């Protein structure tokens, strides 16, 4: 088992290198210099200085090497546009808010989505199942900006229960978390229902019942456990889903998180920030996939033997 984990952890290194490389190569293709946005024309000497400072005068593979070194020493370099700030600073300021938002949305999605899927599967082909699935189909399709706007309109504006935008105390955090969590919740409900229905058909569930086990234990241990294992694999894409959604939600609710800042940085051509944030977000997904694989190995003994 330990061998499997170590191998899996080491495998993420080349993956990370590839993703950094792709991001790096893409960013090099972006047209326009960040420096031309300064008010005065930049003298050639200053420009050369700046380029030396940011290693822009070196060949691309050296730049890449420097960047990789930076990533692995957790130093993403200075911002090209904001004087005196480096990317780490920006991440430190903006990331915690995005992370918090994402976490709440994720919790909302799990705490509501999983029970919804379980109930729908256990009451298969009844009105409970049908309405749960209708509900999840709708929320799977409705764009999050509509959910957010309607929530603000009815809950914040009309009813006045919570403020419309911002990210300070807890009452500010309710609506954005729910708005971001609805899509993943629908996804969870569908996934869990699907795997539950499949597991309920398994021979070993019949064995468990034939042993006289109580319904609680059959469903709780034999069915639920084996149904949730495949659902875990959705965590990576789900994180991507939440990251994408956060771009929109942060904009609507005026939350100073990563998503909002990303758009600003792109239009300001602040390459180092865009690259830093892209690598951070990709790294998160890669890390999530790593955790999922290890968890899978722990929970499903079959994969353990195959992979080690």
């Amino acid at each position, binding site marked *: 088992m330990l061998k499997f984990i170590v191998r899996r952890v080491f495998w993420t290194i080349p993956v990370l290198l590839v993703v950094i490389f792709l991001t790096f190569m893409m960013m090099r293709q972006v047209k326009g210099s960040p420096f031309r946005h300064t008010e005065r024309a930049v003298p050639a000497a200053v420009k050369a200085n700046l380029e030396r400072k940011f290693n822009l005068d070196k060949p691309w593979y050296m730049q890449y090497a420097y960047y990789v070194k930076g990533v692995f020493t957790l130093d993403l370099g200075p911002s090209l546009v904001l004087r005196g700030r480096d990317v780490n600073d920006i991440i430190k300021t903006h990331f915690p808010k995005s992370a918090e938002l994402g976490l709440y949305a994720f919790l909302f999605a799990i705490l509501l989505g999983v029970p919804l899927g379980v109930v729908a599967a256990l009451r298969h082909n009844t009105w409970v199942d049908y309405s749960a699935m209708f509900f999840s189909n709708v929320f799977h399709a409705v764009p999050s900006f509509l959910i957010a706007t309607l929530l603000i309109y009815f809950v914040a504006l009309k009813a006045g229960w919570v403020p419309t935008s911002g990210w300070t105390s807890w009452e500010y955090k309710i609506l954005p978390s729910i708005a971001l969590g609805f899509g993943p919740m629908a996804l969870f409900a569908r996934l869990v229902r699907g795997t539950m229905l499949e597991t309920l058909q398994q021979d*070993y569930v019949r*064995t*468990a019942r*034939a042993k*006289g086990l109580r319904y609680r234990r059959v469903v709780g241990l034999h069915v639920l456990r*084996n149904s949730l294992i495949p659902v875990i694999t959705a965590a990576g894409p789900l994180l991507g889903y939440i990251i994408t959604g956060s771009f929109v939600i942060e904009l609507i609710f005026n939350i100073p998180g990563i998503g909002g800042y990303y758009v600003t940085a792109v239009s300001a051509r602040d390459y180092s920030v865009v690259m830093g944030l892209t690598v951070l977000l990709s790294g998160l997904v890669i890390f999530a996939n790593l955790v999922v694989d290890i968890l899978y190995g722990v929970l499903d003994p*079959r994969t353990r*033997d195959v992979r080690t």
Partner: protein
Amino acid sequence: MALLEVNDLRTHFFTREGVVRAVDGISFSVEKGKTLGIVGESGCGKSVTALSIMGLIPQPPAKIVSGEVLFEGQDLTTLSEHKLEDVRGREIAMIFQDPMTSLNPTLTIGTQITETIRRHYDVPQKQANKKAIELLEEVRIPRASERLKDYPHRFSGGMRQRVMIAIALSCDPKLLIADEPTTALDVTVQASVLDLLDDLRSEHDMAMIIITHDMGVVAEATDDIAVMYAGQIVEQASTLDLFDHPEHPYTEALLGALPQLEGEDIRHRRLTAIPGRPPDLIDPPAACRFAPRCRYAGGDSCTEQMPELREIRKGHWVRSAHPASERAGDRAAAEAPA
């Protein structure tokens, strides 16, 4: 009183295409310590019979529409699910066809044995573990105490079936239902699992129902045999009598399909396949269900009305208008090479 008595059991599947009469009025009984074999082609309703006894049929679409299952005089079909759970595993245990999928892949063998013990007896985990090791030894799994912590995928098919047997025996049930216990196993393993089952049955003084499509399996291990066809019992007798003097044309055909490994006519006797297929069990005609495949049917009552299950001689029941002993004359003609 018989240990298990099934009376006129009917289990139907209510599907979109119509009502499938999977089990259509069958009766039999199993005495304490005896073994009954239920034989038939796949789809004849033998597994549904077993699952109906256990109350494990998938509801919906299946439903027991009538009949009773008397276990020690108590009708299991009327018991609540809660009460049934006390019977399952404790009084009646069951093992299934496919040992590869019948064990939960994410729990250790030990957990799957001890959870059964602890469900029915109030014992501490330690004692349950001890009992589990004894059970594994009893089903002849080597290094039993080490293997308790292993997951099912580390066991071969035959070993898994032994584990299933250990689970079934864990609470000393009075009746063991084995649904095609050897079908999914390698031929070389089949015999040893069958022997094991038979040994354990006599040691534990259990009654047993073996369900199979393989006449060879029931020949050695059973006291009585019921032959099922299209949801009904078509012949029922003691094993000896059935093999020596089969009455129903279907049973004869089944025995004809059994390869003979001894005797001198092995060289020139061919395996005879039964022509045709079992009938559709949605709205079957009122005639004898075997009539379309029967070589003796035609031009008489059996194509228009269902023959009754009758006792043709003591202890030998048959549902046919043309049992072997009543057509002694045609027999020679029928057996002559065509």
